[in-house]
């Protein structure tokens, strides 16, 4: 049994070939993505290279599936009512489905919000708001406004159940495509994102691949089965089945993704859990943290600290170099200095992205003394961290970068892992494991054991 799994990314189209009977990688290739001209060119080149490496013909492969994050990924706008309730739930759902959340909106959409939404060119809009039986005004008002936009994209309604029929009619009467699903927050504080995530994937398969011209891949392979980030998340779920609760950090050129498969219950007895409960499988994405396209915004986010890593006379030079990297987005480090700078940037990407992903404790002063409120997941006891993405796989200084994951006594209320063991996705196959796990669970698990190694 042979398989090739492709990842059609924004810069590269990659392919990994497996002999699944022997749980082995037998070939690997990548080629610049050709989504703007004809996606099949990139795929064909990867196939030819893998045929050359393996001596096999593409027809010898029983499984030929792809994931995609090309053409800007799966761009979602999430709209809810209260920012940290239904808006947050809609955002979490979108991220967990492998989407890229362009922006989140709350309360009533204004005209400038609506103009912005059109300019942002989303692939999907998710409308939530109200618990079941709850608020009627905002979902209806926002639905009416959205239905008048000059956007020919699918809408998903995941708000107050009572309004499902009405909302459906609002969109249908304007000739829009509308999917209705379960509320992201059926009851106050209860998050329910599985159903909407299934719909997002369905819409991705049915509409988005076609809209982006990616369905042409079917001339060569079976098809695109999910967005790449979802495949990576599924890869991590497989890892967790073997090793227990875990965290994954994926540093890239444009974004840094963090995923956790963990409950995150309080580890100290005197804290009180507050805020929306986090999903067990949680993904967060930082669009301002990356080592190429987002190098400048990363630099801005941590300038003071980044500078401290270099001697005073080098600061100007470093700034120049960061600017250079943000423009030359496919630059590969050439010497030790380059590698060092990349490692420093990756450290801060890891540090800030992890801080934003994990929970925190807030001190609240009351007549009864100081109370400790925990928001989000306490991951201090979590002990497995998987790293992936170029800067964490190939850079010899990656262990330095990974220190950004670790809990610090200087910031005792940021609930990062205290003493994790690091694993690395050396072969860059986490996404492929995710795809294979949906077909042959046991084989995916064996690939995890074999190729995701302790550092």
């Amino acid at each position, binding site marked *: 049994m042979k398989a090739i799994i492709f990842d059609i990314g924004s810069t590269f189209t990659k392919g990994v070939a497996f002999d699944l009977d022997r749980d082995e990688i037998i070939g690997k290739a990548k080629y610049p993505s050709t989504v703007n001209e004809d996606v099949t060119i990139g795929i064909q080149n990867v196939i030819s290279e893998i045929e050359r490496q393996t001596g096999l013909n593409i027809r010898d492969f029983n499984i030929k599936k792809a994931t995609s994050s090309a053409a800007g990924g799966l761009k979602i706008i999430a709209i809810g*009512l*209260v920012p*940290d*309730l*239904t808006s947050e739930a809609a955002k979490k759902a979108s991220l967990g489905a492998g989407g890229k959340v362009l922006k989140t909106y709350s309360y009533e959409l204004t005209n400038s919000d609506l103009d912005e939404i059109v300019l942002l060119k989303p692939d999907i809009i998710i409308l939530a*708001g*109200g*618990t*079941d*039986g*709850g*608020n*009627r005004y905002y979902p209806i008002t926002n639905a009416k406004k959205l239905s008048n936009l000059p956007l020919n994209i699918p809408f998903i309604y995941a708000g*107050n159940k*009572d309004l499902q029929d009405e909302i459906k009619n609002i969109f249908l009467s304007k000739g829009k495509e509308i999917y209705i699903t379960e509320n992201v*927050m059926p*009851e*106050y*504080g209860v998050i329910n994102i599985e159903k909407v995530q299934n719909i997002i994937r369905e819409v991705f398969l049915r509409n988005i691949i076609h809209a982006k011209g990616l369905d042409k891949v079917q001339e060569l392979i079976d098809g695109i089965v999910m967005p790449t980030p979802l495949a990576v998340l599924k890869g991590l779920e497989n890892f967790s089945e073997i090793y227990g609760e875990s965290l994954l950090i994926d540093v890239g050129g444009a974004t840094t993704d963090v995923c956790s498969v963990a409950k995150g219950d309080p580890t100290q007895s005197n804290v*009180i859990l507050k805020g929306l409960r986090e999903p067990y499988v949680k993904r967060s994405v930082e669009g301002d943290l990356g080592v190429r396209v987002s190098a400048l915004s990363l630099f801005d986010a941590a300038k003071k600290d980044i500078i401290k890593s270099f001697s005073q006379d080098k600061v100007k030079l470093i700034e120049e170099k960061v600017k250079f990297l943000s423009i030359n987005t496919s630059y590969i480090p050439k010497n030790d200095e380059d590698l060092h700078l990349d490692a420093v940037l990756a450290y801060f990407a890891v540090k800030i992205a992890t801080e934003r992903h994990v929970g925190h404790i807030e001190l*609240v002063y*009351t*007549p*009864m003394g100081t*109370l400790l409120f925990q928001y989000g997941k306490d991951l201090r006891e979590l002990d497995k961290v998987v790293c992936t993405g170029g800067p964490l796989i190939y850079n010899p200084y990656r262990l330095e970068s990974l220190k950004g994951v670790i809990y610090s006594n200087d910031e005792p209320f940021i609930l990062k892992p205290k003493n994790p063991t690091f694993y690395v996705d050396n072969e860059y196959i986490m996404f492929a494991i995710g795809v294979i796990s949906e077909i042959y669970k046991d084989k995916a698990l064996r690939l995890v054991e074999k190729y995701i190694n302790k550092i």
Partner: protein
Amino acid sequence: MGERTVVLGVIGADVHAVGLRILDYALRSAGFDVVNIGVLSSQEDFIKAAIESGARAILVSSLYGHAELDCRGFKEKLQEAGLENILLYIGGNLGIGQKNWEEVEKKFKELGFHRVYPPKTMPDEVIRDLKKDLGLEK
């Protein structure tokens, strides 16, 4: 839900949970849809829950003696959130050292509460008032 939705919780740093549970049970049995936000709830927690759930009334419970402090500015925040018409009740153990009840009641009315209940109020009384104030009485 909708017509009969009420938000219920214990405000501030107060952990007295028993009365809340009894009220929750009694209100549900009387046909109300109860959004119980639990103990240790802030003013913001009540407001957010009321907006999302489209509640028509907020029932605040406070036992530990700091209700006045915890409720200051609540009315203003509700107005800010567009909930100026929501029905607002409070009960539990509101006065420290049992001052004269009329005084306590007056103070909480000034803070924006439509009804203020003395200690040991039975749920039946609240249910009767709620039905009347919400126009649910046929």
